[in-house]
């Protein structure tokens, strides 16, 4: 893997993300890249389910939100340091995903998609009523938790670099799985699950495994994100819109590709951010986003990567 050019492309992306805002202490750029990191992490991991195994998961936000809750709650109620809280969030949410997965992965197609919507709404409603997590008011953590990092300003940088690392890990994970036997099995499931099973792909095990894996990094990013915010509430943590956006991003970028999904996530976030803050477009930002999306869906059916591949066939050898 190390000898492939794509390995180094990912390394370059991580380096650029880490270095650009750090040079000249550009806090504003850092903050806009934070959301890009979140989107790339969410979309890349969703892509494991959606692009590889062909399962539409509206519930990717649950991993993010639950990760956030577990991490913030451990820090707040049990005074855990950040790192073990993050790991607990990652492993805890993965374990939960395995339990959810065993139930709903028996469903296919639209039914699976529906069940994941049910999970988002159910978990949000649960969090709104669960008093240890503050119910609908959520959990605030005192700014004092930033002290071990040397203050809020320093902590924000540390968290940012951690998020970039998680994003990088997501890209390597996507790439690694894609070029592995596991990935081949997933792609086969995505194309034709019955045929894959008959060819010997252990479909239930692979599906459960990928669902579980795709929960890990989003949960950690959720932990970092809400720790950074020092505040978490159910309506933000389990926002169905963000899940839908992640699906949109995968399809925009080209599902099943590593580059396309990452690029799609980056462009989508930057575009939304621009429209939202642009004085000219702000009033119509939703409409414009909708029109742009429609144009892309109608006229670039195979997504960004499909377009790039067909225009520059040689990129297919380099970009996964």
């Amino acid at each position, binding site marked *: 893997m190390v000898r492939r050019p794509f390995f180094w492309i990912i390394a370059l992306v991580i380096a650029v993300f880490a270095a650009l805002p750090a040079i000249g202490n550009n806090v504003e750029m850092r903050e806009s890249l934070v959301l890009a990191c979140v989107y790339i992490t969410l979309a890349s991991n969703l892509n494991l389910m959606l692009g590889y195994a062909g399962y539409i998961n509206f519930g990717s936000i649950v991993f993010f939100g639950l990760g956030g809750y577990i991490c913030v709650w451990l820090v707040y109620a049990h005074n855990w340091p950040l790192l073990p809280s993050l790991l607990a969030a990652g492993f805890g949410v993965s374990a939960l995903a395995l339990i959810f997965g065993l139930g709903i992965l028996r469903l296919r197609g639209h039914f699976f998609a529906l069940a994941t919507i049910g999970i988002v709404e159910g978990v949000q409603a649960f969090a709104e009523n669960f008093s240890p997590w503050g119910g609908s008011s959520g959990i605030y953590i005192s700014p004092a938790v930033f002290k071990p990092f040397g203050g809020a300003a320093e902590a924000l940088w540390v968290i940012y670099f951690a998020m970039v690392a998680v994003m990088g890990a997501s890209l390597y994970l996507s790439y690694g799985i894609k070029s592995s036997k596991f990935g081949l099995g997933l792609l086969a499931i995505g194309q034709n699950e019955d045929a894959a099973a008959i060819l010997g792909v252990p479909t239930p095990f692979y599906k459960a495994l990928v669902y579980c894996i795709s929960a890990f990094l989003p949960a950690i990013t959720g932990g970092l994100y809400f720790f950074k915010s020092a505040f978490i509430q159910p309506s933000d943590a389990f926002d169905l819109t963000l899940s839908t956006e992640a699906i*949109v991003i995968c399809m925009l970028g080209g599902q099943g590709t590593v580059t396309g999904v990452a690029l799609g996530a980056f462009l989508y976030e930057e575009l939304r951010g621009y429209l939202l803050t642009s004085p000219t477009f702000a009033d119509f930002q*939703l409409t414009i986003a909708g029109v742009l999306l429609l144009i892309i869906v109608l006229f670039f059916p195979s997504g960004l990567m499909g377009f790039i591949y067909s225009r520059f066939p040689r990129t297919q050898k380099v970009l996964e």
Partner: protein
Amino acid sequence: MLGFIASIIDGVLVGLVYGLAAMGLTLIWGVMDVINLTHGAMIVAGMMLLYLLASALGLSPYLILAPSLIGGFFAGIALYWIAIHRMTGRPPLMSLLSTFAVNLVLVGVGTAVWGTALFNVEVSVPGFSLGRYTFPGPHILAAVLAAVIAVGLYFFLHHTRTGKAMRAVANNREASELVGIPTTRLLAISVGVGVALATVSGTLIGTLFPYTILSGDSYELKGFIVTVLGGFGNPIGALVGGVALGVLEGAVTPFVPVSWTLVIEFALFVIVLIAFPGGIFTRRRGGL
């Protein structure tokens, strides 16, 4: 005890409306395998039409059902040509994206024009009372109309040429094409009918509660549950699914805090989905 009975009756009434609100969603889903994410926005369009016509022209809300039906039908045809027609033969659920995009546009324009202000249309229809519990007239009328519309749709699907052809397309699109059914026109009509159902249900719901530009979302979400309970594309199933949901809400509310109703609803939703993929009230998928 009387309170419990009242809750159940209330559940049936509101459930019929849920069923109506879900019917368009499940029809389009059943016929063409498209999850129409503009459904909520179209419900709101029906509500807005009600507000505009009722307050500007002073029309009776129930007269507005006619323009709502016709307008919805043409909006649906337009939706088909804009967002759905080109998606045939693409990877599954691409239509999810295109309808999501159209929904953004609709909500964006709606918010720019109306904000998220609340609209209220007063309707006076006498209701009836059971002890201290009152069932408002508009509610009863809406429930009855919902049932009438569902039965009408059932007859349309089973006893008209177009309806039968729609069912044929739902069962097997390729075979229908082979026997000479003009599928494209039929699919366009299906989306038209589906959206017309959404706008009509919006107009009816508008007579029950005050609403905002975002009110459609929760009905769309309920529509998903109803679809799972009642099966795809089956108007009677949707009605039964809606009533089941309404009665569940009514039966649960007296005993648990209302905020837990949603948790129970969605937990049940997932369980039902796993236990009966394809709906409790239909025997198999595509059984229009």
